[in-house]
């Protein structure tokens, strides 16, 4: 159920998991769009030569996935703040899952705090943080 008002939000609830498009094609297009033309975002073999496990998803794209998950749950939510820690690379063409859990509700200001995480198929946390949204 999409969240329409603060009364729909429950403390501790899990947001519906979101599967991002981490295909190399999407990652390449995004990196080019923002002017990050490095091979580490567009070519698995070139990234491996740089010591990475494969081509990386830019951190700001992971941040965008996290916000999209929140809008998928609460379409009219206004993002007030999002803070993300890049713990380990998110690798293109690998399956990842975006999750969130409501950790605080401020009824006076209509603000909701959400812990947010990007994990890979092994369940390893790659990116985590918090978001504050107005609903």
């Amino acid at each position, binding site marked *: 159920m999409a969240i329409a008002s603060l009364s729909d939000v429950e403390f501790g609830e899990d947001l519906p998991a979101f599967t991002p498009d981490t295909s190399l094609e999407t990652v390449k297009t995004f990196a080019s769009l923002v002017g990050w033309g490095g091979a580490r975002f567009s070519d698995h073999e070139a990234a491996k030569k740089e010591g990475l496990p494969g081509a990386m998803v830019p951190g700001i794209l992971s941040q965008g996935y996290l916000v999209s998950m929140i*809008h*998928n749950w609460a379409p009219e939510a206004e993002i007030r703040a999002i*803070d993300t820690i890049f713990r380990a690379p998110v690798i293109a063409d690998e399956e990842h899952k975006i999750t969130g859990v409501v950790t605080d509700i401020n009824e006076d200001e209509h603000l909701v705090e959400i812990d947010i995480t990007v994990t890979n198929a092994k369940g390893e946390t790659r990116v985590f943080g918090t978001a504050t949204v107005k609903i």
Partner: protein
Amino acid sequence: MDQDIETLREKYLNQDFDEKTHEVKAEVTAEYARLCGETAARFLDVNDPDFQAPPTFIASLSGRRALPSDFPKFGIGMDAGKGVECFLPIRPGSTIAGRTHLHDIYTKTGRSGRMIFTVSRIEFYDDKGNHLANSDSRIVIREKS
């Protein structure tokens, strides 16, 4: 706090060292939103009456430099994270100004030695001087031993 870091904080924190203007293009923000997985018309449809850049779009806008020109070189920096604060929507078709300052400098010490964290903050303003958003870039530098 280490004395050298305290000295850096006194010298550099909250002093603007860069300003750059950015043209916010509708086709770029809409594509940015689509690639992130947004589905709402206000981010994707240029004809939507509330058309705006997705909230984290500003994280893709950088200044001409991330640190003051005379900031000491401790080692190679790595991207440790990003933060965004949104105050007003960013409207495509507008030109916004980004002013950069160092917002924080701190350290953590682990088994491999001291790591220095810097947080560069870009404050974005529209042409009327309205403060639209902040974008923080956290860089970690493993100190050369």
